[in-house]
């Protein structure tokens, strides 16, 4: 991000990192600062991208000490929304606080094609637009600083949930001699699985390209842990946060911590003793019926994942329709999310009995081949919560 900013925006850029190796990698990008104080002093705009909440709190204390009056602080870190709210309270009124969260890859950061959720004072934000435009092709104003953090967490929880849902259904299908490629094609034809199906499962899982270098299992576990904490704090069920974290940590235990997070399917295969090398041409009689049941279940899961994400966003103070519109422009997008962006009531269009029946059919498939159905069980629990009056 610093390299892109240095290249594309004509600004005087000071760079600081506590890691000497990171500073070495940043050689030639702006002016290296010897200390954080030196980097902060005289800066008009301070941008940070830090690993976790503790580091943000620590840097905010430094900003409070060293930043000049009237400076603007923009934190890009993926952290709990309460952290940025506390930062804004701590730095006001001397320093204006904006919040940004990034989506897409390192390559997109280098090419200035990130998607950003932005929160904070609109006038201050528009003043930074030339800089932000150099970094991000898509910039979505989501309101206050906390909302930018919350929506990123919701987005990543939804993406990880969708990946695990697809993986679980794929492994259940494989245990009934239905190949992954055929199931993914069926999902795609039915418009299921959203962005994750096309850009992660089809592009990476089916191609066996899950190696290190992309957004890792370990990083996703960190984000989903934060999302689960947000759910706890706002009194919303964790829903798929439970199985997703179990799967991510299970994959990490098997040595996949640095692999692309859709690698959870390898953990599921190991857990279910199902081979991933099933020949897609080797379909058993009845595979079409199995595919039909799995598509019906995926439609339910798409709907529930959207429902839960919007419920969590609403509990975090972001109206469902606004959240759906923002999520539709990021990796959580799916037909269900897009439908909710147009009409949040669309998620309620199917009765709970019908949703539960579709899940039951796949639960029976899983039981018959002794494959774990963590997502299906969790979805049943969530449906029960909704039936008992859970809100959106």
């Amino acid at each position, binding site marked *: 991000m610093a390299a892109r900013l240095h290249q594309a925006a004509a600004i005087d850029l000071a760079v600081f990192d506590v890691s000497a190796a990171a500073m070495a990698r940043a050689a030639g990008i702006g002016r290296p600062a010897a200390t954080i104080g030196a980097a902060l002093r005289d800066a008009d705009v301070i941008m940070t991208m830090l690993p976790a909440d503790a580091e943000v709190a620590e840097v905010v204390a430094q900003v409070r000490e060293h930043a000049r009056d009237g400076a603007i602080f923009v934190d890009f870190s993926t952290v709990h929304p309460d952290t940025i709210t506390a930062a804004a309270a701590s730095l006001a009124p001397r320093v204006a606080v904006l919040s940004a969260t990034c989506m897409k890859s390192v390559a997109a950061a280098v090419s200035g094609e990130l998607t950003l959720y932005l929160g904070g004072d609109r006038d201050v934000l528009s003043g930074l637009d030339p800089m932000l435009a150099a970094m991000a092709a898509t910039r979505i104003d989501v309101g206050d600083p906390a909302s930018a953090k919350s929506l990123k967490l919701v987005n990543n929880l939804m993406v990880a949930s969708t990946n695990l849902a697809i993986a679980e259904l794929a492994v259940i299908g494989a245990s009934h001699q239905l190949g992954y490629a055929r199931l993914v094609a069926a999902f795609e034809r039915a418009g299921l699985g959203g962005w994750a199906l096309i850009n992660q499962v089809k592009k990476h899982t089916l191609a066996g390209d899950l190696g290190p270098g992309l957004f890792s299992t370990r990083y996703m576990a960190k984000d989903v842990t934060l999302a689960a904490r947000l759910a706890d704090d706002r009194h919303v069920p964790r829903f798929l*946060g439970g199985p997703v974290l*179990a799967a991510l940590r299970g994959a990490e235990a098997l040595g996949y911590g640095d692999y692309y997070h859709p690698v959870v399917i390898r953990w599921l295969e190991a857990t279910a003793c199902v081979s991933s090398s099933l020949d897609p041409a080797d379909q058993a009689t009845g595979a079409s019926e199995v595919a039909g049941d799995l598509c019906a279940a995926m439609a339910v899961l798409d709907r529930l994942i959207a429902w839960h994400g919007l419920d969590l966003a609403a509990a975090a103070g972001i109206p469902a329709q606004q959240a759906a519109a923002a999520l539709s422009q990021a990796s959580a997008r799916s037909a269900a999310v897009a439908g909710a962006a147009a009409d949040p009531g669309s998620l309620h269009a199917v009765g709970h009995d019908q949703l539960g029946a579709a899940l039951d059919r796949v639960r029976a498939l899983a039981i018959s081949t002794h494959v*774990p159905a963590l997502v299906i069980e969790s979805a049943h629990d969530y449906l029960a919560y909704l039936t008992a009056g859970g809100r959106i």
Partner: protein
Amino acid sequence: MKGTTGLAVRMPLAGQCAVVTGGGGGIGSAAARALAAAGLFVHVADYRHEQAAAVAAQIEAAGGAAMPHPVDVSSADAVAELFRQVDSAGHSPDLLVNSAGVITYGAIGDLPLADLTQMVDVNLTGTFLCLREAATRMGRTSGGRIINIASTASFVAPRLLAAAYSMTKGGVRQLTVAAAAELAASGILVNAVAPGTTRTEFVQGSLASEEKEAEAAAKIPLGRVAEPEDVVGAILFFASRFADYITGQTLLVDGGRTTRSA
């Protein structure tokens, strides 16, 4: 600890790390859930991968933190790999609950050698292997707690024909004593919990009907068989600072069954 008798002070488990073998079912899963609820990060280890995964998912869904591991505790390599995975997660075990176990019922004369070998391998060797790996790591830090799951069959003849099982659980009780003495200098406390008949997959057959359950309960002064959750209190006690000065002990959790001579 003088003057610090408050429960919160004596149960400071939050932030610690536990490894629970046999964590996918029965007493192990109840212990895993209770430890997670007490704030520990729980490594749920079980040879039944899918059950370890399900328990980890339940823990995470309930607001705890857990990592599932597939492991056959009778294999030294698999146990070493389990603890390598714990290391890789950046954790050092503060607590080990050795709950993995198997049972085959049958008269001494009828028991197949393979079943005897399996019970020795899992119940006895497995407990030793996990204890050794955990103790090695605890010895490098400030110590830790190891809680073995023994049985009333460690003390008295089992209710049903299970002499070989009883032999292995007697061994677990004695391992607890010997390991406690050896590891005390490293700050590692080793204790055991000895449940009586507990409603787990172990005894499902013997509790399959109301009559059978009534028959089992009639031999227990408290008048019922134990639920897995009944055993958890003793595990939490040994994990807590209430047990700071207790090592090498086996606590019977049997509703009073062993108070009777028959």
